[in-house]
């Protein structure tokens, strides 16, 4: 099939073969339901708590503060919907931002339809939330602040520690959607004053369909999925043992290489950013130059529409994505790019490149070389571009 270069690791990652290997026995050999009495299955309960421990340790949390879910979206939904109910007698106001993932934004909009007040904070041109704006938005009836750890499109890392401190000072719960950040940057829930944190395994070489919500001990939160007594009665459903083992194994592997990986990827990322900005005219980098995920680069090319760019890169064997959601049902340009102030037509021509530890300098060179040609070709075709 010729060249194949996967540069969309923010969308999902390859499951590590070691992870798959660790999962395999739990499909056809140790397939027992962990809630069962007999030893065959009870062993799975221990395997599960080993995974919980690995994850807890990676966050500076306690084992019984980690709750397995079916992924980042469920974790986000749970965190918002359930705290809003549990703290209804305290207030009905939550604070979040304009650049959250839809799993937060659409949930917040749903909550608005139920009478919850939501403040959506602005961000600056680099996508940064101002902690002082968080402070200013706090009201007596504020029960929750939810600010993402790092943005999934433009890679900006938010001032979580500062926001956490403000939340703590004011006795308000602080949730962070760390789906893009977990295992890509170091996170310590104590140091950062995080009360709840969402993560999803398939963003760090684990399997799809499994994630977790960290819930600090003492946080009141109702079940989101009611039923059996799994997950300390807080999340019902027969445990996805292979998935849990997959996530735990992936976390263990990723945690061991975190610093090294971040260093490698960010160097490559900087090389990519430098080349693109230098060699392709009418181009801008979206997101903060420094406070950004090690593996994320996001560009806007003027006079260019995103999908055409993606398809042409695809024809060259390069997988990337666009800020434009044109293709996923909605035709609106990215809410994130609009929030950082890009006009519609520029927001349309954006490209997200997200690296992995397998990405090489040769890959980046190939990408940039092709990108130059493709951008030129599309501009040639564009009625907006007069050279």
């Amino acid at each position: 099939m010729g060249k194949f270069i996967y540069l969309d690791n923010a969308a999902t990652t390859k499951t590590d073969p070691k992870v798959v290997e660790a999962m395999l026995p739990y499909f056809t050999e140790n397939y027992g339901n962990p809630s069962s009495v007999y030893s065959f299955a009870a062993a799975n309960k221990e395997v599960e708590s080993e995974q919980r421990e690995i994850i807890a340790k990676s966050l500076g949390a306690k084992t019984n503060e980690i709750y397995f879910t079916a992924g980042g979206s469920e974790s986000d939904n749970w965190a918002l919907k359930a705290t809003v109910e549990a703290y209804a007698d305290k207030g009905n106001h939550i604070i979040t931002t304009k650049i959250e993932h839809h799993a937060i934004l659409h949930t917040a909009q749903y909550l608005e339809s139920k009478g919850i007040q939501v403040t959506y904070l602005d961000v600056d041109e680099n996508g940064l939330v101002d902690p002082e704006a968080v402070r200013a938005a706090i009201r007596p009836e504020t029960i929750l602040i939810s600010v993402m750890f790092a943005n999934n499109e433009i890679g900006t890392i938010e001032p979580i520690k500062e926001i956490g401190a403000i939340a703590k000072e004011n006795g308000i719960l602080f949730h962070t959607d760390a789906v893009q950040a977990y295992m890509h940057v170091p996170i310590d829930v104590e140091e950062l004053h995080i009360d709840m944190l969402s993560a999803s395994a398939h963003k760090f070489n684990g399997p799809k369909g499994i994630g977790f919500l960290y819930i600090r001990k003492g946080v009141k939160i109702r079940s989101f999925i009611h039923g059996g007594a799994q997950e300390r009665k807080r999340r019902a459903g027969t445990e996805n043992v292979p998935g849990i083992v997959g996530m735990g194994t992936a976390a263990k592997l990723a945690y061991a290489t975190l610093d090294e990986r971040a260093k490698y990827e960010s160097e490559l990322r900087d090389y990519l950013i430098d080349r693109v900005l230098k060699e392709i005219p009418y181009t801008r980098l979206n997101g903060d130059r420094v406070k950004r995920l090690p593996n994320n680069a996001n560009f806007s090319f003027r006079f260019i529409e995103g999908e055409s760019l993606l398809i042409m890169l695809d024809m060259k064997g390069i997988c990337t994505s666009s800020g434009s959601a044109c293709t996923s049902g909605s035709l609106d340009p990215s809410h994130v790019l609009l929030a950082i102030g890009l006009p519609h037509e520029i927001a349309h021509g954006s490209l997200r490149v997200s690296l992995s530890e397998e990405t090489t300098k040769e890959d980046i060179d190939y990408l940039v070389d092709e990108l130059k040609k493709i951008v030129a070709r599309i501009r040639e075709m564009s009625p907006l571009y007069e050279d």
Partner: protein
Amino acid sequence: MAYSEKVMDHFEHPRNVGEIENPSGVGTVGNAKCGDIMRIYLDIDDNQVIQDVKFKTFGCGAAVATSSMATELVKGKTVEEALGVTNKAVMEALDGLPPVKVHCSLLAEEAIHAALWDYAEKHNLKIEGLEKPKSDIHEDEEEEEEEY
């Protein structure tokens, strides 16, 4: 994106990209929803036959492919015949488009109509069945399940 082979072919090798100097008519339309823009240039002879046609498009893969196909379809046709090149005809010629991409083909139809209107205005003609083009196309979405 499940684009047909024909769509991919027209996208990869778009026909008639470019501009015509001193065109008989030129039309530019945009889709308000997705922000995409298409411009069509026509060269029409005294017998009202389209001798040449070029396009420029700022848009998705489907927009590029439908522009390309639309220009092929109208080339050599009379103005009257060209009016019959609907977005349906363009889609059929491309072996279909994914549902979310149907609106892109409207862009091509409207751009041709706009170019023909421009031609008619410049030449003080009245073309049967041609209406003044809107500069922005709005189209109803596919019927969707009710959402809550």
